[in-house]
């Protein structure tokens, strides 16, 4: 219903034949994001040099490429580009899954508490000076606990408007976990830990190196693979509970699997890049307007578009000012008006 403002005004975008242009747009955004992210910056690299560097990896060393360019591409920008793509894709896929599961276009990993839960877990991990894997594990547990609490309260409170209850519960539980984050920051060593926590809570990829990629790739790939494997069932899961069960879906276990997978990818990206809000809300909508609501197409499209989206944001963050702008601030500047627009269009069509 809420989509009237979006794809429903373009009914021809909905059928199978016209999913291709939608994917083409998503892939074009990803390619544009990749090219910009690799070439633009304090040390500009020309398109020719970029192609040269890439070819030299395949066809052996070439004399006309300066070592500085090579190092910028492979050591500095390469890992960061990979991380941006993975984090963007992860948040978009998680948002898509949550929106379908909760049958609600306004939910996202942030609103359901997955992000704040993961943030508390990760901040505790930093406070205890744990390793990357341990931080990620705690972030995952924190995210799962937060979503579990939100979901339990949201479904057990009887209300005429369960969606409102769910969103409000998410806000309340999120702020409770936020208080926990505040407490850990208050207790943290102000010279070593606190700046790291603060910087990380605003979202950043600036410190990403090759060694950060492994703990990110694994969980994101695993969680996304689970969600994509379940894509046909997710269509049915986006129907009212009793309807889904009457169609033969064991909704209980499946819901747990989907929430766990979406929380896993969210936590992995939070543990790597900190809190980057709004991506999980904005990108699923854009993807849905490109390829329609069918999860079989929506999940891959959201992953591709999310990767490109965060690449563009991260390039802006690096280049917009003399100092790096935290990613969470840029995504909020874009996400807030988008959410308000969405709320307005939902109000119009739901009443």
């Amino acid at each position, binding site marked *: 219903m809420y989509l009237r403002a979006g794809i*429903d005004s373009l009914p021809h975008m909905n059928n199978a034949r016209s999913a291709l242009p939608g994917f083409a747009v998503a892939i074009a955004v990803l390619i544009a994001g990749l090219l910009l992210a690799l070439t633009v910056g304090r040390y500009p690299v020309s398109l020719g040099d970029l192609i040269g560097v890439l070819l030299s990896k395949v066809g052996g060393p070439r004399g006309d490429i300066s070592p500085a360019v090579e190092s910028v591409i492979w050591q500095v920008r390469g890992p960061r580009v990979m991380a941006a793509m993975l984090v963007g894709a992860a948040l978009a896929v998680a948002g898509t899954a949550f929106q379908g599961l909760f049958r609600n276009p306004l939910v996202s990993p942030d609103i359901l508490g997955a992000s704040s839960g993961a943030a508390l877990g990760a901040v505790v991990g930093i406070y205890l000076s744990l390793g990357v894997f341990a931080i990620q594990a705690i972030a995952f547990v924190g995210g799962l606990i937060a979503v579990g609490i939100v979901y339990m309260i949201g479904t057990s409170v009887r209300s005429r408007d369960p969606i409102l209850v769910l969103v409000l519960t998410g806000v309340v539980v999120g702020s409770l976990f936020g208080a926990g984050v505040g407490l850990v920051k208050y207790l943290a060593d102000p010279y070593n830990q606190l700046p790291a926590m603060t910087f990380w809570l605003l979202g950043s990829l600036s410190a990403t190196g090759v060694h950060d990629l492994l703990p990110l790739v694994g969980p994101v790939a695993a969680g996304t693979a689970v969600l994509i494997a379940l894509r046909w069932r997710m269509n049915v899961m986006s129907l*009212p509970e009793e309807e889904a069960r009457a169609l033969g879906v064991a909704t209980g276990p499946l819901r747990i699997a989907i929430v766990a997978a979406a929380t896993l990818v969210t936590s992995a990206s939070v543990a790597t890049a900190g809190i980057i809000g709004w991506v999980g809300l904005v990108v699923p909508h854009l993807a849905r307007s490109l390829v329609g609501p069918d999860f079989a197409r929506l999940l891959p499209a959201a992953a591709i578009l999310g990767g490109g989206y965060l690449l563009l944001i991260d390039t802006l963050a690096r280049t917009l000012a003399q100092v790096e702008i935290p990613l969470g601030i840029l995504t909020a500047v874009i996400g807030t008006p988008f959410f308000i627009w969405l709320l307005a269009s939902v109000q119009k069509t739901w009443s």
Partner: protein
Amino acid sequence: MTLEGHQLTIGYQDRIVGTGLDVKLQKGEVLALLGPNGGGKTTLLKTLLGLLAPKAGEVRLDGTVLSARSIRERARLIAYVPQTHVATFAFTVEAVVLMGRTAHGDLFARPTAKDHQIAASMLERFGIASLAQRPYTMISGGERQLVLLARALAQEPQFIVLDEPTANLDFGNQGKVMREIRALAASGLGVLFTTHDPNHALRAADHAYLLRDGARLAEGPVQQILTRERLEALYGAPVQMITDATGTAFIPG
């Protein structure tokens, strides 16, 4: 094959809605469930579908206790047509009907060529093939009801349970749905539906089951059961009966 409830006590966690209910539905037969609002119709429906566990008694399908079958197995035997509702996502009509094939594939299965073919033939059967690529959110209430019927038939069930299939439909579409219900029974399915209109029961059902305050008031062939006196007792309101050479109709008085 029969779907039957034995001495059912129905209700939710914190309250009991009805007790001592016996229901029996044969294949090829249409049973109409009538009763005032809040009388337990929907609760009984959900219990017979296995969506709600009975608090006492048991639901049996083909002699086996319903809860002994897996949720997938049940969906291949009983289909549910809920009241039409506004969907959250703008799935195409074809995608909605394809969801009826869910129970025929495993957890990771994608729709097969056969699934697509069955979905297409169901759309054809209800004369809505031209809507296949339209968003479900953008079609009329009558069309939505037909889409949900097509989805239920795509499950290839033995029984179909419909919750107020004629609510929210205009006069013409009400007639169409009644005809389809008769056609389903003629093709061998057992059909159970709830309705607020005794005339729909008269028209489409073989048997009627009158439910008031969670108790059975009467049950039997519609022609015998649906009388002015019984309907007045059922709804607690005056009812007029009009009879002529072509049949009988009831009007709330």
